[in-house]
């Protein structure tokens, strides 16, 4: 792997990189390394703030009482807390004060939702606009990586709740009609995939949009895990007509994930030009993805997407998420296959053998000229 200095000197014959500019780059990197926090340190800050926010929430509830007549009061306290968190959080007062502001902001957001969204009756559009609007305002007003990430994740999952509960039927005890849900669910799935690509694949706004990108990835993983346990669909009735429509709707989401995986592969290989250069490889990939879609292994495709994104972006957090989620989705897929044990045994051993054959083929033909040590 080339060093940054070698890359700079190789680009444009090194004319753009005078010794002064290289020195400036070095100084920027040193300063960046000094102020930046690794992701696992950020995770500790986030866990602390998240825990503390529940204590603060409990404090307000214990002070006022958890009764409907106090709903608006709690909402107003939420606004005050949010303003306080934004004002304090914007000051360059260090990580600890930022963590306090984050905890107050999270507690404030929950109070705001409790105060101003009626759980029994909330028009979908209004509730969604409220969640997304609040997240956008806080994204702009509170320019802190963790605040942005946690606010977006919260808003994305709450919006999912609004979509599946419609105008509040969940809490009134009614079930939803599944076919009514298909359009917003599909739209929301497409939004997640497209936004992830927009946030991570284009370097232009990557720093600004990184928290949103991570929130989208976490939200999509959470959604897929929620699907495994039928969290949302258990309160819906399936009423597709003709029945093939149900199959199409079910596989459409998986197909969209496969399409995104294919697009990311093309991007990772160097763009559209790579399609013609490595046509046999991409045809093989397209066939493999089509087979996975037909088999209905949506979670596995999602984990593979994260693995590919994490590796091609050299992003350890996404790579680890992919590595952790792959066995989860793979185990779930094979465990719930509607086959007897013998057939399942054949499918498992057959899939393993296909992967080993694929590996042998790639080593022999596709990577025959590569000189990487194995």
């Amino acid at each position, binding site marked *: 792997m080339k060093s940054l200095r070698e890359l700079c000197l190789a680009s444009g014959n090194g004319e753009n990189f005078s010794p002064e500019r290289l020195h400036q780059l070095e100084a920027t990197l040193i300063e960046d390394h000094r102020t930046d*926090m690794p992701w696992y340190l950020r995770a500790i800050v986030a866990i*602390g703030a998240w825990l503390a926010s529940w204590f603060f929430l409990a404090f307000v509830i214990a002070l006022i009482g958890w009764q409907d007549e106090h709903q608006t009061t709690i909402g107003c306290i939420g606004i005050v807390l949010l303003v306080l968190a934004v004002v304090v959080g914007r000051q360059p007062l260090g990580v600890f004060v930022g963590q306090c502001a984050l*905890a107050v902001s999270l507690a404030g957001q929950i109070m705001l939702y409790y105060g101003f969204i009626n759980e029994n009756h909330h028009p979908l559009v209004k509730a969604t606009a409220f969640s997304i609007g609040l997240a956008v305002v806080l994204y702009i007003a509170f320019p802190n990586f963790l605040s942005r990430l946690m606010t977006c994740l919260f808003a994305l999952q709450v919006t999912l709740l609004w979509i599946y509960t419609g105008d509040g039927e969940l809490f009134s005890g009614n079930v939803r009609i599944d076919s009514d849900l298909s359009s917003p669910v599909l739209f929301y799935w497409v939004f997640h995939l497209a936004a992830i690509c927009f946030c991570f694949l284009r370097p232009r706004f990557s720093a600004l949009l990184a928290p949103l990108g991570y929130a989208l990835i976490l939200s999509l993983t959470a959604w897929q895990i929620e699907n495994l346990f039928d969290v949302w669909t258990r309160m819906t009735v399936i009423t597709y007509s003709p029945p093939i429509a149900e199959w199409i709707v079910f596989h459409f989401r998986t197909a969209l994930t496969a399409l995104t995986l294919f697009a990311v592969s093309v991007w990772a290989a160097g763009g559209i030009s790579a399609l013609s250069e490595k046509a046999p490889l991409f045809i093989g990939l397209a066939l493999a993805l089509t087979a996975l879609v037909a088999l209905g292994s949506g979670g596995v495709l999602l984990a593979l997407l994260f693995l590919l994104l994490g590796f091609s972006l050299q992003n350890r957090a996404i790579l680890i998420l992919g590595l952790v989620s792959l066995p989860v989705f793979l185990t779930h897929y094979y465990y719930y296959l509607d086959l007897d*044990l013998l057939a399942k045994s054949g499918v498992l051993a057959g899939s393993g053998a296909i992967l080993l054959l694929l590996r042998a083929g790639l080593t022999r033909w596709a990577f025959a000229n590569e000189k990487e040590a194995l």
Partner: protein
Amino acid sequence: MNSLSSPLDRPASIPVLRRLLAAKALSLPEVEAMELQVRRELPWKTWLDRGLLSLGVVLILAGIGYFFAHNWNHLTDMDKLGLAGGAVLVSLVGATWAGLDRFPGKTLLLAASALVGVFIAVFGQVYQTGADTYELFTAWALLIFPWVALGRFMPLWIFWIGLLNLALGFYWPVYPLFGDYESWTIFRHETISLLLLNGIALLLLEVAGRWPISWLDRGWSTLILLTATLIPASVETIGEILNSWDKYISGHSAFLACALYAAFVVGLGFYYSRLRYSLPALAIITLNTCTVLTFLTIRILDFDQPDLHAGIWLLGGIVVLAIFGGGVFFLRTQRLAHQKT
């Protein structure tokens, strides 16, 4: 700063390029061109090769497991033993043929180690040995030890230590050394013995790491062993803390557990900050300590009382923030100090 330690001379990476773009030190076309170059130089072949091999082997092993489950009642005893033993032999021969110094050979050795467990389970079922679960895992660990020692493969060692953990975990509930114990005593024995086992493994890894052994990984395996050591330590301490809520139980053991835990994490913190610096290891220690301190706060503020005052919640929140904030402050200080040296 000399050129050897300059960040410009480290391998270029996409996150670094994007940070330079955000700092306006590089232009967008420059970053796009360099990113393309970096992505092309990524070890795609190794990544795909190892991913496909590992996944393929795991799926085939699972398929073998399902085959046994399905045909259990139809197979004769000799068939069962022959198939299980044959699978072990085939994996071993495959590992030798592929070469124990290469990744495919090592993966097959790991598969053979896993299949020994299947063989022992079949053996126990055929001959009705009446062995306890812990005996199965102990025998498994003993049988594979020779090739674990010869394999020079860190995941195999971690797998072996995992087997010992399972053996120990299943041992205490069924076969206490000195008579029957009540569940609380079994819990104590279990956590303390797991702490000792994983702690010794971590110690040996750290000692062995002083020699230049190429296959001995001191990155992720250290973190796994450190986590496996700290979890029983913190679970035991938290258990002692929460147990002291029972008014009939003296708080002395909780106090002793907290003191020992404190000494343990301080020692580990000192080692990974002064003797062998590792920020991820320090982060694991800090997160673990913060968790124990949070439970200690909950106990000291007595959240178990029926009419909890609102102020207690506020105080609890502030203390939790102080604990985690202090932890992050410690880690940042360590990082800055290490950068200066």
